[in-house]
């Protein structure tokens, strides 16, 4: 049973689906928070993911070349997170804030412009070609392999996948603590519920906006670095390609529901990978070329059938 069915399913479809789902989930958190607290769809979100990957790569290269210290991407991501947050806050201050009281479409267009600006900037600085993020072939973790093989259920997870899944779980727990136990996190939920009431409750909404960029920036860089770790390379379009599935995840979970976005991300990641599993006969269910259509299909069906998402998010 394991040999003929389980091995292939778990190792080549389920685990990659979970890994992809984690990446979507982290990206979708920022999208759903921006959507519910600042009330606009931020098209530049994927680019911040992408530039976070480039910042991290640069930190790794500098550390290695200047000091001879190779950094794990997760360590190198720390300065990248700070830069990405600074970028988000500066962009907000000079490009989004002036449109705060204008119709939402203006700031959406501003974010669309920002998306192009950031991508061009990255192309100008780091070049238009792919960069190797982590060289070599990712070998499965020996311990997990031997342990599972001893019970005849061999699981092959490379360390990078272990880091991505564990990292996502840690970030989820931290986010949950932030949103339910801290003053600023509760304030974020309050502004998401009603910005008008938040204002007349004495909440300084601009402080909450900054906190939102911090959380969104942190999760975006985590997503970008995890994606780069998974693909082992960087390219300037990687953020843009994640945008649709991340929006789909945010909508599936319900706008303004960070944990809905996580569920949505996992569902979409799994759906994309499992849609190419040979469920019927020998060939994959749908051709891998159409994999990206899965997120789009789920998003459209959700918008038609239940626009508030699985967890009763906001309607616009």
């Amino acid at each position: 049973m394991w040999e003929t069915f389980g091995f292939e399913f778990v190792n080549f479809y389920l685990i990659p689906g979970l890994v992809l789902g984690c990446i979507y989930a982290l990206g979708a958190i920022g999208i759903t928070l921006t959507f519910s607290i600042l009330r606009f769809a931020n098209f530049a979100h994927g680019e911040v993911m992408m530039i976070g990957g480039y910042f991290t790569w640069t930190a790794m290269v500098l550390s290695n070349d200047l000091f001879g210290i190779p950094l794990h991407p997760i360590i190198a991501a720390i300065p990248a997170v700070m830069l990405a947050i600074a970028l988000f806050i500066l962009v907000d201050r000079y490009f989004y804030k002036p449109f705060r009281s204008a119709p939402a479409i203006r700031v959406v267009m501003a974010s669309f412009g920002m998306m192009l600006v950031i991508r061009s900037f990255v192309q100008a600085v780091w070049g238009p070609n792919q960069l190797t993020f982590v060289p070599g072939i990712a070998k499965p973790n020996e311990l997990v392999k031997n342990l599972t093989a001893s019970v005849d259920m061999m699981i092959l997870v490379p360390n990078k996948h272990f880091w991505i899944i564990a990292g996502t779980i840690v970030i989820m727990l931290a986010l949950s603590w932030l949103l339910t136990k801290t003053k600023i996190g509760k304030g974020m939920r309050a502004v998401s519920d009603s910005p008008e009431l938040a204002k007349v409750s004495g909440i300084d909404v601009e402080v909450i906006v900054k906190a939102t960029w911090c959380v969104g920036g942190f999760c975006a860089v985590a997503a970008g670095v995890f994606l780069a770790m998974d693909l082992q390379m960087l390219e300037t379009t990687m953020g843009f390609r994640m945008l649709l599935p991340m929006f789909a995840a945010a909508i599936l979970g319900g706008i303004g529901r960070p944990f809905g976005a996580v569920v949505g991300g996992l569902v979409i990641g799994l759906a994309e990978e499992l849609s190419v599993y040979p469920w019927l006969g020998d060939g994959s269910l749908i051709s891998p070329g159409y994999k990206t259509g899965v997120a789009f299909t789920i998003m459209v069906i959700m918008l038609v059938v239940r626009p508030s998402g699985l967890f009763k998010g906001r309607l616009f």
Partner: protein
Amino acid sequence: MSKLTALEITNLHAGYGETEILKGINISVEPSQTVAIIGPNGAGKSTVIKSVLGLLNVISGSISMNGVDIVGIAPDKAVRQGISYVPQTHNVFPNLSVTENLEMGAWTRKYGIAERIDEMFDLFPDLKTKRNKIAGSLSGGQRQMVAMAKALMVEAKIMLLDEPTAGLSPKFQAQIFKTVKKINENGIPILLVEQNAKQALEIADKGYVLVDGANKVEGTGQDLINDRNVARMFLGSKD
């Protein structure tokens, strides 16, 4: 030494954008008073309260609190100054628990938050058992109590209530009026907008009737209840 007027609105002209809704309003609330504003729908009652909060465009006139001019103040600063405001609608955070709603009300408060929350549960005992429920799941009456308790979490120098009994059952209405009276007896001046004019005037020291953005009649609560025009227009009396 004479006490400063808690809230003094003088010749206020205000509106939304270019449209002038209030055309010269005069209202004053003395310390320790409960003051009621009544008037038909669309008279501008909510607009008066929103002007005090800095939520809209004041064209001319003055608004002062304990002698300090507060025209054009930002809403969060107004709250910091001690204005406790219960909006007419959308006055709780539906996805936050009752306790979290109170904590958000206490955003500007530096200390004594836990004690104040306990005081609020004494004032609104119904809320105590619901403290961990999300506000959106409560009944209309209970939500109104959350809204009032949340507003009282600030160090209130005055409380502004916009139709707190609208849409509630008579039992809840009576309870809200009783609580408003109690809050006032604890030393907080109150400006109360109401559709339930008779009950509002009964607990009010002073009442104002607004029509079409201007003062129409004013007097003590009892005077207005006895005023035949007011009675005919707002109190459902037949003669």
